[in-house]
C-alpha cells in the first residue's frame, strides 16, 4: 500500500468515488474567513469548479478514504470479492490534499466516503477525524460532506455532523428485495433507522440554535441519500414512491439517483447493460415536480405507463398533461398558480413572471414567448388574450407533435 504514490492512490480512490452522484456544495450556512484566520467560505449557492465530459459538475474533492471493504455488495466496484486495486489514505493526507486543492480554487470542499475497514466504527472514526482536523487544526470553512456508515455507532455519526455541512447515508436500492439480493451485508431497516436518527439530531440542533445562540451546529446542509437505478427490477413508480416516503419521513434535502453503470470487475449477478441515462434524468425531473411544482407523488406515479415506467421520449410533466388533457387549456391570465405550474414548458421562474406581469395587463402570446423558452411547447395547453387552442388537446397525434423529432441514436449499445 505504501508503495503507491499519492498520485496513484488519488487515482484509485477518486475512481472508486465516482459512483456517488452528489456533488452539491449548496444549502449550508454562510461563512467566510475575512478575519484572516483559517481559510474558506461558503455562500448560499454552491459553485461548480469544473465539468467532466460525463456532464457532471466537479464541486468537491470526492474521494474515498479507502476502497478496502469488508462488505460484498454486488453493484459496488469496491466490494470485498472484486479484484480492483486497493489503496488507502491517512486522514492527514486527505486534509493536505483538500487544502492544497482548495487554496488553488479547484474545489469548494471535500466529499469523503469510505469502504469499511476493520469495523464500521473504526472507519467512521477515521472519517470524522478528517473533518475535525480540517475544521479545528486548519480553520477550514469550506464545505464538507461526509458519507456516513449506517452500521456505525450513533454517537460517532452525531460527532460527524458537528464538523460536516452535510451528512448522507445511501439507501442504495429502492426495494427491500433488491437490497437483500444485491447487498447481502446491508440491512434496510438499519439504514432507515440511521437516517431517521440523523434527521432527529438535525431537527434538535436547529431548535436549540433558535433558543441558544451558541448551541453547536449539526449538518446545516441537511442530509441526502442515493438510490441506484437499473441494478434491480424496481420500476419508476416504485422508485418515486420510495423517494416520496424518504422525503416526507426524514425531511431529506435531496434524493439522488445514480443510473447503474457497468463497473469494471462486475459481479456476475448484475445486469450487464446499463439503463438508459435518460431514465435517471426523467426521475430527477419527477423529483423536481414533487419538490417545486406542487405535484403529489401519486400525480407523478399516474404519469407512468402500465409497467410503472415513465416515458423516456417526453418529460413526466408533459406525460401527465397528455394523460389529463381535460385539465387544459389553462388561461394564463386567470388560472391559479398551481395550475400554471402544471403547464408543460412553464418553469417556476416563468410562472413567477406571469403572475407579476398579469397584474398590470392581459398577457398575449408574444408576451408569453419572452417569458418562456419555447412557446411552441406551451401553446397547445394555454389560453392567452389573443390565443385559444382549437381542440388541439383532443388531437390524437398531440404527443407526436410535441415529442422532439431528432432523437439521437444510442451510440453505445
Amino acid at each position, binding site marked *: 500500500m505504501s508503495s503507491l504514490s499519492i498520485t496513484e492512490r488519488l487515482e484509485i480512490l477518486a475512481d472508486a468515488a465516482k459512483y456517488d452522484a452528489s456533488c452539491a456544495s449548496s444549502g449550508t450556512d454562510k461563512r467566510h474567513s475575512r478575519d484572516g484566520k483559517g481559510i474558506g467560505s461558503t455562500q448560499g449557492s454552491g459553485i461548480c469548479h469544473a465539468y467532466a465530459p460525463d456532464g457532471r459538475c466537479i464541486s468537491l474533492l470526492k474521494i474515498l478514504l479507502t476502497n478496502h471493504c469488508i462488505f*460484498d455488495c454486488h453493484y459496488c466496484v469496491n466490494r470485498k470479492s472484486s479484484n480492483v486495486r486497493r489503496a488507502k489514505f491517512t486522514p492527514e493526507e486527505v486534509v493536505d490534499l483538500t487544502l492544497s486543492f482548495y487554496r488553488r480554487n479547484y474545489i469548494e470542499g471535500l466529499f469523503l466516503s469510505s469502504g469499511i475497514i476493520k469495523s464500521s466504527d473504526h472507519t467512521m472514526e477515521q472519517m470524522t477525524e478528517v473533518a475535525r482536523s480540517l475544521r479545528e487544526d486548519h480553520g477550514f470553512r469550506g464545505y464538507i460532506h461526509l458519507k456516513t456508515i449506517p452500521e456505525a455507532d450513533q454517537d460517532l455519526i452525531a460527532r460527524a455532523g458537528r464538523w460536516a455541512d452535510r451528512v448522507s447515508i445511501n439507501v442504495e436500492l429502492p426495494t427491500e428485495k433488491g437490497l437483500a439480493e444485491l447487498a447481502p451485508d446491508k440491512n434496510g431497516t438499519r439504514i432507515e433507522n440511521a437516517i431517521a436518527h440523523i434527521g432527529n439530531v438535525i431537527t434538535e440542533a436547529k431548535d436549540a440554535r433558535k433558543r441558544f445562540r451558541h448551541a453547536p451546529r449539526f449538518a446545516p446542509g441537511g442530509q441526502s441519500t442515493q438510490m441506484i437505478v437499473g441494478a434491480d427490477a424496481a420500476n419508476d413508480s416504485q422508485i418515486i414512491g420510495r423517494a416520496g416516503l424518504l422525503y416526507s419521513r426524514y425531511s431529506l434535502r435531496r434524493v439522488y439517483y445514480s443510473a447503474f453503470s457497468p463497473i*469494471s470487475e462486475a459481479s456476475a449477478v448484475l445486469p450487464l447493460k446499463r439503463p438508459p441515462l435518460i431514465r435517471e434524468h426523467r426521475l430527477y425531473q419527477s423529483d423536481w415536480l414533487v419538490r417545486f411544482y406542487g405535484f403529489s407523488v401519486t400525480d407523478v406515479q399516474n404519469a407512468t405507463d402500465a409497467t410503472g415506467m415513465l416515458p423516456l421520449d417526453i418529460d413526466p410533466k408533459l406525460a401527465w398533461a397528455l394523460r389529463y388533457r381535460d385539465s387544459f387549456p389553462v388561461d394564463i391570465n386567470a388560472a391559479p398558480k398551481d395550475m400554471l405550474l402544471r403547464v408543460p414548458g412553464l418553469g417556476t421562474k416563468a410562472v413567477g413572471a406571469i403572475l407579476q406581469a398579469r397584474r398590470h395587463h392581459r398577457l398575449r402570446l408574444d408576451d408569453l414567448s419572452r417569458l418562456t423558452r419555447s412557446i411552441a411547447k406551451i401553446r397547445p395547453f394555454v389560453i392567452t388574450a389573443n390565443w385559444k387552442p382549437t381542440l388541439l388537446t383532443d388531437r390524437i397525434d398531440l404527443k407526436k407533435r410535441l415529442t422532439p423529432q431528432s432523437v439521437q441514436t444510442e451510440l453505445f449499445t
Partner: protein
Amino acid sequence: MTPEEPRHDRLHTVTITCPDDPQEWRDKARRLAAAEIPPGMIRWTETDETATDLFGTYCETTDIPPARRTVRASRAFLHLAGSVLLHRDRARFPALYRLLWRLQGAPHLMENRGDPDVHRLMIMAGQVRRDIHKMRAFVRFRHIGTPDGEERYIAWFEPDHHIVRANSSFFINRFASQNWSILTPDLCLHWNGTELSETAGARKSDAPAEDATEELWQRYYASIFNPARLKISMMVREMPRRYWKNLPEARLIPELIAGAQAREAAMVETGADPFPGPPPETLQEIAAGIATCRACPIGCNGTAAVAGQGPEKARLLIVDEQPGEAELSQGSPQTGHAAQIRSRLFPHSRITYAIKHFKFTQNGNFRLPKPADARETDICRRWLNAERRIIRPDIILALGPRAGRAILGRTPSLERERGQFIPLPDGSRLILTAHPASFNALSPESRQKAEEKLQNDLDLIPQDCLQPAPEPGLSAE
C-alpha cells in the same frame, strides 16, 4: 426662449470614464432624466472611444441642463442596472436610459418581464451574473514561493464583462489568509493579507506558467470522470470552450472523450457473459461443457476438468471447493475430504465441485492448490447451477466459504451462518460448514474443536439422506 431653457434639440455626448462603476452612470443618467433629455438625444461613450468620433457630430456635454423634474427609479431597476452596467456591450447605457425614461411614466414597468426593453436588460444582467459566477468557479491559482519565504497564489483570468472588481470581496472572504493576485487583461487585483490593491491590466505571460499540484488535479479530474456516461453537450454548456485555455484540467478533455468508448467497451467486455448459449440440461452436457470451458483463467491453465459423481437423483449434494491432484489423475472425486465424508457417512449422496478445474501455484515440481477468487467462482456457478437443476437435492452440504459462495452467489460468513439450514430459492436447504482441509494448519486442540463443529454440522443432515432416493436414477458417470 430664455437663456436658462434647456435645449432638447441638441445632441448630448456623455462619457463614462469608469466602466465598472455603476454610481457614475446613475449620477449622470439621473441628471439627464431630470432635465428631460429624451433617449434619442444622448450618445453614450466610454473613455477610450471619444477620440474615434470622426464626424464630430456630437460634442461632449459638460453642462447638463438644470433639473425640471424629480426622477424616480424603483429598487428593482437599480438592482438590474447594477448588474447590466458591468456588461461589456456599449448598448447597455442607452438601453438602461430608455428604460429609466419609460419608468417615469409607467412605475410598474419592471414587473412586466415580457416587455421587450425589460426582457433584453434581464438577459444582459443574467449574462453578467453568470460571468461573475464563472470567474469564481474558473479562476485557478498557481502557487509560487520566493527565495525570501514569501508565498503567493497567482491566477490569470479572462472575464467577458467588467466583473473583476465586483468579485474582489468574494476572493477576500475566501482567501484572506493567503497572498494572492488575480491578473486580467483590464485590471489586476492583489491581496497582501490585509488590504487590496489594483494595478493596470496584464498579460497571460505575467502569471506563473505552472504549479506542481496541477498534475495531481488533472489526475483527479481524469479519475472522477465516468466513461460509461458521456454527456459532452452538458459539459460544454456549463464550461464553455472559451474558458478551456486557462483551465489546466481542460487539456485532458479530448483524450478523455476519445478514450471513453474504448474504456466502456473494455468494462462491459470484462463483465460480459462468457456463456452465450442456453445452459446445459443433462449431466453429459455438463461434463462435455466443463471439459472445454475456457471462461476463466483456471479453465485455461491446462488442467483437466472433474465432473460430479453419484446418483442423478441424490437427496444430498456435497459441494467441495475444487479438485486436487489425485482427482485429476483419476478423473473423478474419490480420495479427497469430500469423498471420505461421502463414503463414510452418505454413500447415496452426490459429490461435485464449485470450481471444475484445479487452480494451483507451481512450487518446484509440485503444484500447490490455490483458492479460486470470487470472480472465478461466480463464473463457474453456471455449471453448478445446471447440475443443481438436474439433481434437485433436498440438502446441499457446502464445504468451505467458496463452496458457499458458489451456492449463494455471495461470500457467506462461516461463523455466523454455519450450524443451521439456509433455505434456498429452489426449495432446497443449504448446510454450510468448514472445509476439512483447513484443519491441517490448526493446533491439536483447535483441530479437535473444529472437527467437533464439523460433526455438529454433519449431524444436521436428516436421516433420510442416508437412504437412496425413492426412484434411484442411474449414476451418470
